[in-house]
């Protein structure tokens, strides 16, 4: 398989078959919490994509540095601190220089530090693409986080649509509120299960 084809297959896999929310259960909190309105869902996921990309770009070289010094065991603590600091920096810079973008995305940034989807993508990237520090693997890692972020957005946007339908529905009393939301999520996830065979046959 050529490199570009491989990147494309990673990209599609992470959006559809290995969707972070619906099949890996990463980032459930924002999925349930801010998916009620379409505009907040889009804003939140755009911020997640942005943070995922820059965190991967920064933590990947850092991991190579840690490996070189034999300090792999510090990865969790280093990554979470780097992500937290980075998010804070970006927030400050954005507020000062691009206020319009800050109003659209910035307000979600503090919530993202403790979002497991971001730390999850960084750790998974190290796990699957961390064989060696060459540029090809770095490219895979970046495409993987872009795909994961877009998959996150897709799930959020779809679910915002599902939830707007739920509001007018006549729901049995015992399922009202959170339970029916989770069952709706279950059905959304079930529909994504249908993508399982797609990627391998598309790129076979």
């Amino acid at each position, binding site marked *: 398989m050529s490199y570009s084809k491989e990147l494309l297959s990673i990209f599609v896999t992470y959006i559809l078959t290995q969707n972070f929310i619906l099949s890996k259960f990463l980032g459930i909190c924002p999925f349930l919490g801010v998916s009620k309105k379409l505009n907040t869902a889009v804003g939140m996921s755009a911020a997640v994509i942005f943070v995922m990309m820059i965190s991967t770009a920064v933590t990947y070289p850092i991991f190579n540095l840690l490996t070189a010094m034999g300090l792999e065991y510090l990865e969790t603590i280093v990554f979470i*601190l780097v992500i937290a600091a980075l998010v804070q920096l970006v927030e400050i810079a954005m507020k000062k220089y691009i206020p319009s973008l800050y109003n659209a995305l910035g307000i979600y940034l503090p919530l993202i530090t403790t979002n497991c989807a971001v730390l999850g993508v960084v750790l998974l990237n190290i796990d699957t693409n961390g*064989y*060696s520090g*060459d540029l090809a693997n770095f490219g895979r890692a970046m495409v993987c986080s872009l795909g994961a972020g877009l998959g996150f957005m897709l799930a959020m946007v779809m679910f915002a649509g599902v939830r707007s339908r739920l509001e007018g529905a006549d729901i049995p009393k015992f399922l009202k509120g959170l339970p029916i939301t989770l069952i709706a999520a279950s059905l959304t996830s079930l529909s994504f299960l249908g993508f399982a065979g797609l990627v*391998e046959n598309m790129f076979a």
Partner: protein
Amino acid sequence: MKKAIIIPTISLFLICLFATLLLGVVNGVTEEKIAQNAIITEENSRKIVMADAKSFGEKTEGEYTFDGTTAPYSYVEALDENGNSIGYVFVTASTGYGGKISTMTGIDKDGKVTGIEFLEIGETVGLGMNATKPTFKEQFKGMVSGISVNKNAPSGNEIKALTGATITSKAVTKGVNTALDIYENVIKGGANNG
């Protein structure tokens, strides 16, 4: 103003320093045990994939490019009671559905697979994880280089894919094929790839 910056900085720095020191100490205690665990798993798995072997030689490590991806591998020589070589046991890595899969493959002198075992696997429970069941692993016995995956009726040098987990089946097969390729090219062919 200066105080407002310096005090938080120093206290945060001290907390980090202390945390790192603590981690270093714990790592010192557990590192050896973790390494030992890995060795024990590897030794036990070797006996499963190459049941005829009585002892194993020194471990050789390297990197190998197969089907476009470069990954590290290692192998040991399998010896019978007289110390004669009867084949090799490889450890290769491939990427499955849930991350890295580390496969151990035993290959005899004729280039046939004698058995496979997983050192690391984290696939979906109920689907990909079924690869760890004996019925799937047994299929690889006696296969030769260039194994392929068939979903319905496998014949010849083919294995039957796990239901609903073709990605895992292909990843495992790739790991085994990598081992066969290394055997052909590096050990038998004497070529020095990577």
